[in-house]
């Protein structure tokens, strides 16, 4: 709706619309007899800006009757201002922390950038902790997050496309990518998809992630969330697209493959031998955490002949007075560990680690003492729990936890055959997933698309000098990312 020429009408309309919002401040004042009207939201503005750069200038230095345009150009000493002509734009700006100035006999308003949100500042990353490497993490402030990325990519090709999403929340979304590296269809696809969303609110990037996933019924995350600016930047350098969501300390990276969930930012900061070893360990741990309880059931209940004799006898004697079948035994222990994990999250952090360890040891040994479970099961459950923590991405770990139960049940019902069937089913499911056109199991599947060079950054992490090509995400003509002509690294 367009603004009126008369100030009173404007004032009335605005006050009516914002009636009941006591945190909105209306300020009326005069400049050489011209009535002015100032609107802003309390506490999310920087007060000094309004006082020093706006009010002082207009009230004291205004020598003649300025209209809105002249005020914007001559009086208001703020870098970012713009003229608008509709009420909607005024409301959007005011609710965002900007200040609107309406002048008598003018159907234009000046929007003055005065944003000054409360924020907790840049802190250390909590979920993706590294030993070596930068410690800063994204914050809830979307603009700050783009800055954190921009600081690491000082390239004119880094584009930031901003728009709003959410019918009522009007959350700021920023899509960041390297124009000459990222594929255009990918960028357009991401933007189109987000713009097409018609939902009430986007409270966190987790919302957006679930809306953007193609197969939302799958337990496996098809997009990557990160709170590390270095990780986001490296993804952008590879030709991926980062989606920064305001009010969320997590940035979405698309596309994401299974392989990426096993990469930690640290992998590239430390030596390649140890990090290759860590990669192997992570993959091994992930397989173990999913299959171990199921395999235990399949082997002890259905095929004890596969277990080495002395171990079989040990398991048998350990279970001799256990009143429950093996499946119940495993479920009891697994549930206990899941509860410990969940309770540990809720507890204040100094207590939680102690609680986890003590709880694990006490419950485990008490259960064995009481004869409710065999000693081997405690080891199995603990091992599968520990293994799951070796995978760096929490979302992927949750998926593994769900899959573990599927395998447990199928193994309990049909033994080794059920075990194989469930493993195949999981593999088939993974093979059917795609993330924005990239197979989820890439580069283990379809590696030929990039001449198998992406294997250098999968189960092993090749020396940095050997990873000359960008991964498959980059544009076809933009595959080379480093050039060495001589040993020193010069061209």
């Amino acid at each position, binding site marked *: 709706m367009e603004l009126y020429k008369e100030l009173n009408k404007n004032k009335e309309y605005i006050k009516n619309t914002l009636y009941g919002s006591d945190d909105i401040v209306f300020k009326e004042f005069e400049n050489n007899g011209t009535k002015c009207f100032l609107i802003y939201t309390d506490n999310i503005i920087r007060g000094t800006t309004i006082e020093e750069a706006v009010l002082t200038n207009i009230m004291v230095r205004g020598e003649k009757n300025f209209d809105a345009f002249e005020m914007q150009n001559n009086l208001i000493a703020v870098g970012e201002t713009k003229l608008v002509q509709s009420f909607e734009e005024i409301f959007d700006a005011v609710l965002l922390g900007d200040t609107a100035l309406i002048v008598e006999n003018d159907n234009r308003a000046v929007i003055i950038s005065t944003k000054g949100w409360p924020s907790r500042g840049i802190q250390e990353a909590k979920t993706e902790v590294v030993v070596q490497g930068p410690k800063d993490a994204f914050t809830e402030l979307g603009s700050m997050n783009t800055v954190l990325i921009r600081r690491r990519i000082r390239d004119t090709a880094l584009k930031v496309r901003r728009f709003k999403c959410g019918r009522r929340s009007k959350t700021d979304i920023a899509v960041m990518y390297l124009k000459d590296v990222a594929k255009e269809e990918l960028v357009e696809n991401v933007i189109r998809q987000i713009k097409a969303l018609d939902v009430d609110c986007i409270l966190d990037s987790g919302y957006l992630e679930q809306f953007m996933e193609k197969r939302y019924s799958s337990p496996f995350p098809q997009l990557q969330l990160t709170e590390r600016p270095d990780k986001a930047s490296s993804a952008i350098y590879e030709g991926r697209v980062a989606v920064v969501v305001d009010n969320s300390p997590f940035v979405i990276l698309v596309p994401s493959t299974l392989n990426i969930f096993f990469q930690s930012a640290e992998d590239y900061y430390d030596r390649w031998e140890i990090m290759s070893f860590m990669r192997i360990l992570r993959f091994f741990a992930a397989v173990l955490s999913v299959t171990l309880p199921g395999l235990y059931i399949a082997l*002890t*209940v*259905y*095929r*004890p*002949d596969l277990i080495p*004799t002395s171990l*079989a*006898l*040990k*398991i*048998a*004697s*350990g*279970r*001799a*007075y*256990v009143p429950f*079948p*093996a499946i119940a035994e495993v479920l009891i222990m697994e549930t206990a560990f899941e509860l410990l994990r969940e309770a540990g999250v809720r507890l204040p952090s100094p207590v939680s680690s102690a609680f986890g360890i003590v709880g694990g040891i006490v419950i485990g040994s008490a259960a064995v003492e009481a004869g409710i479970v065999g000693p081997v099961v405690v080891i199995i459950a603990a091992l599968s729990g520990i293994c799951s923590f070796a995978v760096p991405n929490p979302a992927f770990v949750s998926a593994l936890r769900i899959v573990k139960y599927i395998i447990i049940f199928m193994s*309990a*019902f*049909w*033994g080794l055959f059920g075990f194989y069937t469930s493993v195949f089913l999981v593999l088939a499911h993974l093979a059917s997933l795609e993330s924005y056109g990239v197979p989820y199991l890439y580069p283990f599947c379809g590696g030929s698309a990039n001449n198998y060079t992406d294997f250098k950054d999968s189960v092993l992490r090749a020396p940095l000098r050997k990873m000359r090509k960008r991964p498959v995400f980059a544009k076809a003509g933009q595959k080379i990312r480093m050039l060495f002509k001589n040993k020193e690294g010069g061209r």
Partner: protein
Amino acid sequence: MKRLIGFVLILPFLVTGCGGNDIEGRNFVSAVGYDTEANSGYEISLCFIEPDGKDMYSAAKADVISPTAAVTDKVLSSGKRQMYFGHLKAVVIGSSAAENGSLDEILIDLSSNNDISMDTVVLCAQNSASGIISTVSNSGDGLYIWDFYKNNKDRLYSTQKLTLAEAVKKLDTQNGIVIPLVDAEDESLIINGGVIFSNNIKTGVFDNNQIQGFIYVLGGGKGHSEVININSEEVPFNIEKNTSSVKFYEQDGVLKADYDISFKVKRLDGFNYPEGASEILAQQIKGKCLAAIEKLQHLNSDSLGIAQRLKRQDNRLYNKFYNEEMFKNMVINLEINVAEK
């Protein structure tokens, strides 16, 4: 459609599942013995380990079951726990079963049972198998025979290891087989020597020296040791390497085989080796080998697999000479080479 898929998913749970038996609900049979009774049934004795939460090795029990084979299943399942053959380690053939010619029946039956590992050790008892099994059980160590072979991997002096797979293969391809002999003496087991089968029937027994000769002819003497006696003083040699090759030819209408058996031996520290010790060693080895071959030929038990070798090496000779008595009538020459390291 989704309901249909859901139904298909649930259906299996309704019709099958949970058919397993928990591991502690099984008795682990570690050794099984076969004897035959007069009325042509089998007497089967089992040594099994009960998982009872205590020291499991002490829980070995022997159970002698004496019905005929036909009702074995019923007896095996009537106990408190299921008899489980998945960890069967040793099969002992009693001498009555061996003399009756039921060897291949027993072994093929065992090998066709999917629970049973083909790595199971096959032994032949001097007397009754049930005696051996109860000795194993009384010794408190249900895995005695298995451990014996495991811990003496390359150092079996007067016996060999025969697995179910090897035994079955030999039964198929040659008319004779030698099965290691086990005997119980004063509540302890002695595994040495071997029982000779020809055409599936027990025909004789190798003593310690003969079975050593037999092993040497097959080229499996690595890890054995040979003790020679000079001037009433005993000096040992360790055999580091033993190879054997055979050549067949025809001479004067007789089939002849030249065995070329060579050894690499090592002297041990702390012994005084006189002059010409290796010649005496070669003589002693040759004597053992000849004794073994002589005995096998006498019993017409082609346990060396000579017919099979001849068939592959020289088919023409095989076709010319092959008959039931071929092995018996063959002239076998031995050439022993002993080299010191």
